[in-house]
């Protein structure tokens, strides 16, 4: 006599079954992940690189589906992958960002050299506050901790590029340049990070 009905219809949203997750990595992404997996003795260790690939494949952000895909590909639980992804600041999870993320270092050395002034200038220029994206979805302004370029303080970072010491006119040129950049720099960064982890031969093979 089974008096318990545990299978009652649930209203709570359900996590997808591993088989139901849509896998959207491109062939190149899959190959790169396969190579990265050979770098480590276990699959879990490829978590960070896999998330970078996912961030590239999903257009500069890590939506929930991307987390699920990484979890399925690495055989981990969804929650675990989400936990790892939310730990690191450079994964854009739970807050979608625009095409270009402008990261302003406001840490000690930069703060001493006027980072907050530059930050205020940027905020006014873009009309957004920390963590916000411009209405057209082009720029996201973020405050970051030390970028370790204290000799060039105050320093800004866009994708893989440091700009510093940054004065108002540097900011103007930067914004202008980015406005004319079609390719999202967030994607470029994720791609650069992935490429940096692959050996030359692996890179060549993955791009075939």
């Amino acid at each position, binding site marked *: 006599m089974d008096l318990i009905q545990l299978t009652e219809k649930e209203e709570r949203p359900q996590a997808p079954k591993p088989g139901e997750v849509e896998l959207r990595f491109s062939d190149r992404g899959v190959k790169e992940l396969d190579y990265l997996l050979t770098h480590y003795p276990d699959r879990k260790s490829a978590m960070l690189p896999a998330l970078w690939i996912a961030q590239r494949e999903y257009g500069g952000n890590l939506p929930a589906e991307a987390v699920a895909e990484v979890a399925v590909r690495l055989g981990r639980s969804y929650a675990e992958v989400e936990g790892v992804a939310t*730990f690191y600041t450079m*994964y854009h999870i739970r807050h979608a960002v625009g095409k270009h993320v402008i990261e302003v270092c406001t840490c000690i050395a930069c703060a*001493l050299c006027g980072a907050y002034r530059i930050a205020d200038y940027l905020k006014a220029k873009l009309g957004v506050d920390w963590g916000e994206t411009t209405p057209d979805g082009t720029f996201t302004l973020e405050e970051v901790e030390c970028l*370790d370029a204290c000799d060039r303080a105050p320093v800004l970072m866009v994708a*893989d590029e440091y700009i510093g010491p940054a004065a108002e006119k540097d900011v103007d040129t930067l914004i202008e340049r980015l406005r004319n950049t079609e390719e999202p720099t967030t994607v470029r960064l994720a791609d650069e990070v992935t490429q*940096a982890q692959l050996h030359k031969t692996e890179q060549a093979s993955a791009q075939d």
Partner: protein
Amino acid sequence: MPETRLLLKHSGDPEYRAIAGYMAEGGYVGLKKALTMERQAVIDEVKKSGLRGRGGAGFPTWMKWNSVPKEKTKPHYVLCNADEGEPGTFKDKELMENTPHLMIEGMIIGGYAIQAEVGYVYIRAEFMDCARAIKMAIDEAYENGFLGKNILGSGWDHDIYVHMGAGSYECGEENAMMRSLMGERGMPGLKFPHAPFPTIEGLWNLPTLINNVESFACVPHIVVNGGDWYAMIGASTKNSRGTKIFSVSGHVNKPGNYEIEFGMPLMELLELAGGMKGGELKACVPGGSSVPMINKEQCEKAIIGYEELVEVGTMVGSGGCIFLNEHTCIVTFIWRTTLFYARESCGKCTPCREGSGRLVAALARLRSGDDAQKTAALRDIDELVTVMRSASLCGLGQMAVSPATSALQDFRQAVGAPKGANT
């Protein structure tokens, strides 16, 4: 005393970044020499050199190398800590960008000495320039037979992979770095005496040698010229040998990396960096934001050296030297420093997770409150920092309080009535 450029000798030379230029300047001679030596002899050479970890703690490098099991029963790993994140420090960045082969060579020698088969370079993802340089160096090393199977006919195989971080200061802590590399949240694990050293149980519970970029970069020079030669540099100090790169920033005229011999007075370093900008010297944080701050009098007495700086109440740390001029509001400075720690706290242990946030709040009260609030805030800070320092799990929590404690010791008078914020 001028700079003693050993690691940064060819830093400005673009040719040196490629393997041809590097080898033209005597690159990979150290590796070739090391491969002809006994593994123990390499370690002994490092021992003779008196090299100490350049990452912050100053632990003798040879002891780490020596504690990896000699009888190899399972895989060994080398991990290079290139997750430089300490505010004020940017020496590894320059080393990796301009002299990538030096570090790679050092890593290979280290790998040979401890019989490792794989080495990882954990680079923070912000350092894309470094990552590209290192990646190129690794590729070139493979092409020239310095990496891969049967290196230079020695029968020893070694691979090096780059592993990119994703934005976390905490991952610069060796234990957290290993966790991060293993695909977990970058939280520190248990440390000695609660768990064995990483050289016994590190990555995937296997012996792992972790060293800083600068430490590895010193190794080729030691192997080529001998430990005794290296030990002569900086011999005027108690127990600090060789050169150390100091990243000078803050209110100085020429911020940048300066490689100096141990034993140089701190004020000479300031002179090298072009002297103060915008006012008299007020205070200095000589080794990255987590070391205690010292005031002008202490600066004038300070001699650079691991023991010597402890004598004036601070540390060499990672060599991130920030000079503050007289117009700097100390409270604002420590508030901003502490804010950094609060934001970068991994959240694992209670004192750091909750305490760092409260310390920021208390400092904010100290910054803007009235007299009664200031008195209360000062009392709170005093009690807060004792618990944080004694109870935190890792260095982050323990060191997060040092700016506040040291500044409050030295500048209590000033802190009690701080000037307006002038950042």
